């Protein structure tokens, strides 16, 4: 019996590791089965809602939707990667941004409100880019008002109006609506990316996004 004991121990550890890893994987991905299977693609369902934050032409064959949190470091990295993809794919790619500020990031909600307040003056993407570019500056600050107002000024916003809009109930409601919509689509963390309605399983990697876009383009050609 003792001769077999080491192999029994090794097999038990292997099974336990695979079992626990599989269980955790299933729990973490359970909330988005529809998107993963493509059964109910809740895609670019936009017969263009004017309040959507969109870059790229409406008839682009690929729509990349991102649920982002301006204080999430990975979101900042992914944002840079998306910029590169937009350059690469041009009119073939349409990017839609949704707010998904996480509670664990202390300034995420304030940043989302700042972006939406900038959107009121038609400069969402300018503020979006500023927030990600200088994330490392404001993310650890005690208060962020000074930073956000200086960004507002530098992108040409009416700062007094920006300040008022950041506290406006409808601006907050806009952020909350994105969050609710994201949750209904199974979004749990950021960044979460959908390409033509199908959720990418690894949002981290630029290669994964490019591969998703290529697949979507190939599927579009085939249909």
């Amino acid at each position: 019996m003792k001769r077999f004991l080491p192999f029994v121990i090794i097999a038990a550890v292997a099974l336990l590791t695979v079992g626990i890893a599989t269980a955790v994987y299933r729990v973490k991905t359970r909330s988005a089965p529809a998107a993963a299977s493509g059964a109910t693609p809740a895609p670019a369902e936009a017969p263009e809602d004017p309040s959507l934050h969109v870059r790229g032409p409406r008839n682009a064959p690929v729509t990349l939707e991102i649920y982002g949190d301006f204080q999430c470091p990975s979101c900042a990295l992914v944002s840079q990667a998306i910029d590169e993809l937009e350059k690469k794919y041009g009119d073939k790619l349409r990017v839609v941004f949704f707010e998904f500020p996480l509670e664990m990031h202390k300034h995420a909600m304030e940043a989302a409100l700042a972006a939406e307040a900038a959107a009121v003056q038609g400069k969402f993407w300018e503020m979006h880019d500023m927030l990600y570019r200088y994330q490392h500056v404001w993310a650890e600050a005690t208060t962020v008002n000074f930073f956000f107002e200086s960004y507002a000024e530098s992108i040409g916003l009416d700062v007094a109006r920006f300040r008022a809009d950041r506290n406006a109930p409808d601006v907050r409601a806009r952020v909350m609506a994105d969050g609710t919509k994201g949750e209904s689509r199974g979004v749990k963390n950021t960044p979460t990316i959908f390409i033509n309605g199908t959720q990418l399983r690894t949002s981290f990697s630029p290669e994964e996004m490019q591969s998703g876009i290529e697949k979507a383009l190939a599927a579009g050609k085939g249909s």
Partner: protein
Amino acid sequence: MPNKSIPRSESSPTETGRPVVYWVVAVIALLGLADATFLTVAHLTGDDAVCGSLAGCSAVLGSAYATIKGLPTASFGAAAYFTVFSLAILAAFGYAQVRRFLVLMVAAMFLASLYFLYLQAFVLHAFCPFCLFSAAMTFLLAGVLVAVPADR
């Protein structure tokens, strides 16, 4: 004194000097395995929340070095730790012939950990605590095997 050790046949394991060392190695490898498995699952689910608000952590786990040929780098770590665990268990039960592979495996992991530390410090300029823990486990494994030679 009669010899009460288990009689050996040709296929039986041979005696190793200090099996306790191998049990220690096995426990350390298990800790590394848990860490690497956690990172692998986090990567596969795209779960950025593992990093909390640690900027460096996300920068490392979201970098181009987080995957090798499309597979999470952490999965290679998990495989390596599992191999070390298996070899250590076999060595602890007297399979002396596996010790050489165990030392070679830990040496390879030691070099890989140095490389990943270099990437974090000088290429990415960011550190991921889970990766540092894994490196610490590998250094501990190497330290144990070097400081406490198992055979005499």
